[in-house]
């Protein structure tokens, strides 16, 4: 999955520092959003006390307990997930250490889909990492603040939308198409439960008291648990065996790998002990899991029947308590709290399932009475022009409640995080920070560029003076190099593309660095290999070793013949020469891991440097 890594170390100090800085700046901006909107709200209410007192908002029923559980519970979960996204290694590590391992056992088309998103993340790790933090924090706050009304329902829809993004791209469709799917380990993906909860929160108030809602929730939970019991009991999937041909079975492997991740010692011991139990008594443990899921599934399905729910309320109560207990046990012993070790992004599926089960139970309880406002009191609805006039807007703002103001602020936080990433995605090239992470910042120069007179790949005589009036991106390449030089040539090619209309004002120039393979036949072969033959303004210059050596020396480029079948050792450097023939910048140019992301990042750096040189003349 080529897009899943930009090749940098997950703890790369430059990216981590940039990620922290971005979070700090955006965090301050988020606080400012809350402060400004709050002050404005208070000020307008003071300015227009009549509007503030106007009970313009129609009455809505009091929020039922089941909805409170889902809204507050999942609001806190989103908030917690957002905080987990702020781990320093997340910016670089999420695609390669979270998404890719999960996707690796899924079908090819799922990997392709996920790779698409991983590439977007890898190209802009800082913006993507920060976006994930603020979108999730924002959705969490929005759910917590917006208790009722359209704003609250919209929070539910936002939870569904982002939950789907996470489920598809972050969890590879929850792993439902991968082998080894098990309720115990998180199937069908925690984000799927966020979506279900969001959809329930988004339901209009008229459905809150609907009897079919409770039946649907209970029956749905029962069917889900039953299906998970069947999945868990399916033969040939390795769950019945603690060990299989001397190797740990599926469940044993999962528990053991969890036990080895960094976490508090007591917890590690607990999980490890459970792993030993599963290894020794795999059949019994799985039998318990299958039986528990089946019995609970039946109990929820039966409790969904109106007659049973009225005559035997204890059945549902017992089933909910048992399911919550099972979820908590699994959360600790199998899922290891979901976020310990590696790069945890959420507490996995058991807490969401427990919240949904509790909500299903509470859904049977009677909803508190409503305080319907007379619809006629609102009078005729003004047209949209009237409603967007400053006076009308300030009146609406003064009349709105504090929860709405805070909800609007939370939406501001989401946009604050998402907008830089969306803007970054508008460009097809990667962020320059990847290049900076590999080679550091460029060095500014201001001296005449050493002259050269060489032969290009077509056999034409080229001097530096003949390029006067154009900015020159100059590098030194070995035409028979097997690693860096082809990558660097592609970075030059891509920089030319990024320059767009400015491309005609920039010459992309490479000077041969190999004293043996110095004929134009080799520069031409290199151009064919790197598909540079059709690139306008690309010059691969060469000459005799006697012509080349003084140029290498004047530009401070070192090369060395290495023994034992090695290619020529040489420094990776690029120079930016202004249209006046003066050196403007020297860029360290080691392409690093040579991924598509880093290649694109260097191209961005080169194109930016060329534009700066054109601007400086």
């Amino acid at each position, binding site marked *: 999955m080529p*897009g899943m890594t930009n090749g940098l170390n997950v703890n790369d100090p430059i990216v981590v520092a940039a990620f922290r800085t971005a979070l700090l700046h955006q965090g301050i901006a988020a606080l400012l959003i809350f402060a400004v909107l709050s002050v404005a709200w208070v000020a307008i209410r003071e300015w227009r006390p009549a509007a503030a007192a106007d009970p313009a908002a129609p009455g809505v029923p009091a929020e039922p307990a089941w909805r409170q559980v889902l809204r507050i519970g999942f609001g806190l979960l989103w908030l917690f997930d957002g905080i987990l996204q702020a781990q320093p290694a997340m910016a670089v590590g999420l695609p390669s250490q979270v998404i890719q391992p999960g996707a690796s056992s899924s079908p090819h088309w799922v990997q392709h889909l996920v*790779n*698409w*998103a991983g*590439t*977007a*993340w*890898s*190209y802009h790790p800082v913006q*993507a990492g920060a976006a994930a933090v603020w*979108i999730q924090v924002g959705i969490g706050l929005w759910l917590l603040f917006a208790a009722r009304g*359209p*704003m609250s*329902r*919209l929070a539910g*829809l*936002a939870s569904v*939308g*982002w939950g789907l*993004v996470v489920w598809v*791209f972050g969890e590879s469709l929850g792993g439902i198409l991968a082998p080894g799917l098990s309720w115990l380990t998180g199937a069908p993906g925690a984000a799927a439960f966020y979506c279900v909860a969001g959809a329930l929160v988004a339901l209009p108030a008229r459905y809150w008291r609907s009897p079919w809602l409770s039946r649907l929730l209970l029956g749905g939970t029962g069917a889900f648990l039953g299906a998970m019991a069947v999945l868990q009991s399916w033969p040939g999937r390795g769950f019945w065996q603690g060990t299989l041909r001397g190797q740990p079975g599926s469940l044993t492997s999962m528990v053991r790998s969890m036990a080895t991740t960094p976490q508090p010692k007591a917890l590690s011991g607990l999980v490890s002990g459970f792993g030993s139990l599963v290894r020794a008594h795999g059949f019994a443990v799985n039998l318990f899991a299958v039986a528990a899921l089946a019995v609970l599934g039946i109990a929820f399905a039966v409790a969904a029947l109106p007659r049973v729910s009225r005559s035997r309320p204890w059945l549902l109560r017992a089933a909910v308590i048992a399911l919550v207990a099972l979820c908590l046990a699994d959360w600790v012993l199998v899922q290891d709290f979901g976020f310990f070790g590696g790069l945890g992004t959420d507490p996995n599926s058991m807490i969401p399932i427990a919240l949904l089960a509790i909500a299903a139970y509470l859904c049977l309880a009677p909803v508190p009475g409503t305080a319907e406002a007379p619809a006629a009191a609102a009078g005729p609805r003004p047209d949209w022009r009237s409603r967007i006039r400053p006076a009308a807007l300030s009146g*609406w703002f003064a009349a709105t409640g504090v929860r709405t103001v805070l909800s609007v602020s939370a*939406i501001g936080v*989401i*946009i604050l995080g*998402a907008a830089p*990433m*969306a803007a970054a*995605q*508008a*460009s*097809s090239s990667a962020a320059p920070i990847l290049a900076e992470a590999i080679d550091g910042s460029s060095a500014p120069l201001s001296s005449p560029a050493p002259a050269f007179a060489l032969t290009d790949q077509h056999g034409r005589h080229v001097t530096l003076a003949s390029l006067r009036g154009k900015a020159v991106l100059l590098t030194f390449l070995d035409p*028979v*190099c*097997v*690693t860096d030089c*082809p*990558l660097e040539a592609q970075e030059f090619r891509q920089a030319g593309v990024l320059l767009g209309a400015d491309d005609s004002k920039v010459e992309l120039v490479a000077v041969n660095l*190999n*004293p*043996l*393979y*110095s*004929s134009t*036949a*080799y520069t031409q*072969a290199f151009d*064919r*290999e790197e598909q540079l033959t059709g690139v306008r303004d690309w010059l691969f210059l060469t000459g005799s070793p006697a012509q080349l050596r003084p140029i290498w020396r004047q530009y401070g480029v070192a090369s060395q*013949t290495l*023994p*034992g*079948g*090695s*290619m*020529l*050792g040489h420094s990776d450097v690029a120079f930016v020469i202004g249209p006046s023939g003066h050196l403007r910048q020297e860029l360290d140019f080691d392409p690093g891991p040579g991924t*598509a*992301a880093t290649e*694109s990042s260097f191209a961005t750096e080169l194109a930016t440097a060329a534009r700066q040189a054109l601007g400086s003349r």
Partner: protein
Amino acid sequence: MRAGLPAVAVAGVAVAVLAAGCGSVTGGSAAPARRPASLPLATSLAAGQATWAVVPMGTTSGPNLFWQLFELPAGGASWRLATPPDVATNGAIALGVQAGQSLVAGIHPSQLLDFSPVTSTPDGGRTWSTGAPNPGLADVPDALGTAPRGGQLISLNRSGSAGLARGGNSSWTKLTSTKALAATPAGRACQLTELTAAAFEPSGSPVLAGSCGRPGVAGIFADQGGSWHAAGPPLPATLSGRTARVLRLTRIGTRLTAVLQVGAGHAASLLTAWLTGSRWTLSVPLQLAGRSVMSSSFGSGGGTVLVLSGGRGELLAGPGASWQPLPKLPPGRTVTLALPAGGGVDALATDRSLLTAWRLHSGGAGSATWVKAQQIKVPIQYGSSS
């Protein structure tokens, strides 16, 4: 307030975050039909005034596998490192021997290098000059051949085509392709499935070899006046019911030597065939008994020496001789046998950066043992191709 707008904005932005402007993924290109085979590349050739050996060193695969070229002057006692400079040899080295201590070396593509640099030495590897770059040599030991009177080169390329360079720095032109050759009457008669070697006949005609789908036919083809005709030896009647694959085809001096594998699996046999003038001579078959060829080498007098899987070596001294098993090969991660121009048998055992040359010492009563003759520590630059 209007409820829908923020939701649409949020959803749009959220999806845009991960969906928009994603990098493209380069799909692997479809493999061209009838690509050349891949055969063990370790080899040794003795010609003129020198014996040359190409052996793998460093790691067994990946960017730290560096193929090395060693030279043993005729009459000399010590091998000498002669790997061509200023080019990475991770993909192996193809040899085309010439008179005296002259050699043409083609560098197999590796990593991001897609074509094959060509270089030659007139003095046993002390100085090198370059020839026209080849489009990319196939992964076979006989991907490069030299004409008997110098100048011309023939190659078998990764794309399945054969190329010709007419000498000096002249560029390569396409000679034919597997597909085109398979469509000729000779190719159809053989039911050619792949090309495995390229060389020149002693007469100077280009010659290609490969695998035939039709039993009893040796797939060797010579180009005469622009048309290809069957030029392989007739197989013995006892082997005529089996298919043949040419593993090696090399011209040394005035002799073209081919190694053929006839049959497959446990029943497979090896034959060496020599073409001198216009007449083929065949060796007796060597039963492989399930073993595979790990390396194959040739001496200047027509000798063939093989390393088979299981650490077994087999020597065929020349036309008219029979296969002789060699003593258990000396230890080493890889062993390549050589038949020095001055006589005898050398075993070049490698283990990472160390090459140990062993010489077969004939004792009394027909016994023979390997005697350690030399060790060379090669200064491999690990990581230089990573």
